[in-house]
């Protein structure tokens, strides 16, 4: 019973971290049709900034999160202006893959140069460390915090996309960019804002998930595939898709690690192959024109 609860909380927390980071990538792939393999790199940058903020600037955890998110968005601006704009909505995934792998390698190299190759921890505030008694069991507080973050993120995004003017323009741009242009919706601004949103979410996920996905230079490469797979399985551009895929794959991976660790990621990737074969555009995705 205790084992099941441990698996459940770990899987849920891991899944939520995957969701918070991947939803940004999903939005980018859904709207700008960019397979951004560098997304994990930006999440990693967020983690580094937060770690620096807490350990060297001695700010509080919540301030660190804010600094990390804003800082990462600022860092991403030159990339967006100079590079990403060239590959928006170009249909050749190979070019996008190459460019974004290049960006990833570049960021890894620079990050190592600045911060060094060792693992960077993000110290949790007293409130979030240690166990929390939820009545019948004790659960690490941090895991619950992460799960709560995931839920809040999902709800906020849903509200943003369904209920606000920005959301309507976003959806119009996704479905009919030519028409949106003709209606006077400034698609470049929508793209830039969405890019910032995606990167910001990634950074946020990188920070809160640092206990589960440790921050070190190869983070960007290590989880590159994971985020891409989550989005592809869930279906690009779908909140429901990213959420279900994150939780599903988080569960598959965690269960596998607990029950059959020697198999490594065999079952994870087998699941991916089966799902992509049955749902090439993801569980909740649509074929793009």
């Amino acid at each position, binding site marked *: 019973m205790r084992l099941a609860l441990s698996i459940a909380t770990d899987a849920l927390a891991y899944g939520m971290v995957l969701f918070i980071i991947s939803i940004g990538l999903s939005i980018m792939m859904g709207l700008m049709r960019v*397979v951004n393999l560098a997304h994990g790199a930006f999440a990693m940058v967020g983690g580094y900034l937060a770690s620096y903020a807490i350990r060297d600037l001695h700010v509080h955890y919540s301030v660190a999160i804010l600094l990390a998110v804003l800082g990462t968005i600022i860092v991403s601006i030159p990339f967006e202006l100079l590079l990403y704009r060239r590959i928006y909505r170009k249909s050749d995934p190979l*070019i996008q*893959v190459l460019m974004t792998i290049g960006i990833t390698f570049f960021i890894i*190299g620079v990050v190592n140069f600045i911060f060094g190759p060792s693992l960077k921890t993000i110290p949790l505030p007293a409130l979030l460390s240690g166990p929390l008694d939820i009545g019948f069991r004790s659960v690490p507080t941090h895991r619950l915090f992460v799960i709560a973050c995931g839920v809040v993120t999902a709800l906020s995004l849903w509200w943003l996309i369904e209920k606000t003017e920005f959301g309507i323009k976003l959806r119009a741009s996704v479905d009919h960019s030519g028409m949106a242009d003709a209606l006077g919706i400034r698609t470049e601004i929508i793209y830039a804002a969405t890019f910032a949103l995606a990167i910001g979410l990634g950074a946020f996920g990188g920070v809160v998930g640092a206990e589960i996905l440790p921050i070190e230079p190869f983070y960007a490469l290590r989880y590159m*595939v994971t985020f891409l797979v989550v989005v592809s399985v869930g279906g690009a551009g779908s909140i429901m898709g990213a959420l279900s895929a994150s939780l599903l794959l988080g569960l598959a991976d965690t269960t596998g690690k607990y029950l059959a660790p020697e198999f490594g990621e065999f079952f994870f990737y087998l699941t*991916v192959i089966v799902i992509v074969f049955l749902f*090439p555009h993801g569980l909740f995705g649509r074929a793009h024109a």
Partner: protein
Amino acid sequence: MTDIALNRVPHRRSIAFAQEGLGALAIVALGAVGWFLFPDDLAFLTRLIGLAFLVLSLDLVTGYCGIATLGHAALFGAAAYAAGIACVRGITDPLALLGIGIVAGALVGLISGALIARFRGLPQLVLSIAVGQLVAALANKLQWLTGGSDGLSGIAPGKVFGIFNFDMYSRTAFLFSLAILVVVFVALSRLVRSPFGLMCRGIKDDDLRARMIGVAVYPRLVVMYGVSGAVAGVGGALTAMSTGVVGLDSVSFERSAEVLVMLVLGGAGHLWGALAGALIFQIFEHIVAAANPFHWMTLVGLLLIGIVVFAPKGLIEPVLTLAHRLRKGRAS
């Protein structure tokens, strides 16, 4: 026929085997440069040739069929493991091991192709990654066979043709690999100019058009994947034999990404580009990465960005344009 159609097709001079012969000569020449000028680096050069086979094999599916894959190392690694395991268990004839590598590579190639060629675009890419990672996970799991994360070592192949021993300085390994590279390159040059090769290029351009002239596209792509696997298998077996070890890095995602970078650097779709890219990339890696691996990553990152922005068709494109213009100048 209603009338005798005036045939005004421009004349095309072609000497049989000209292209292939030129290719073989160029490779032998480069090999000679390596042999005489860098006799202490033959081990590195042999490894270079081994990976060149993988880049060539990737060119077949990416450059000639238009399939984007980040899981191609699986074909190479599976063959390396197969040859290595066979050798450790008693089969030591290098040609036999080569054969085993070819078969293993072709098999993994066919299976990969059957899964990957089924789709296009993003699903294809993700499947290719998943298949590659699956093979990697298997290599890790089957520790009793592959040595797991410790790798397979103690691979000691016998004498080539019963005469030439695999020596410490990699002289035999280098010459053996070079000779096989020439043979394979010539064969592939014929293949890409054959009806089959031309049809694959057509499929890459427009697969609906291909279907509309009656071509069953999917089986053809799977066959090409099998051929690609065989070529990768040659490289895998040779690498296992010449280095004496096989590790998990030979099936890793990093390896798959690396060879894609090499291919794109040189230019996909020309076979030459694959060789050029493999050569240039690995030489630079040898020099720079030894100094500082992280600076190497930064450089590769910049290089990739640079290629995409400035030379998406690879470095070989300006060379080819020049050659094309020279040939046109001569013909007119």
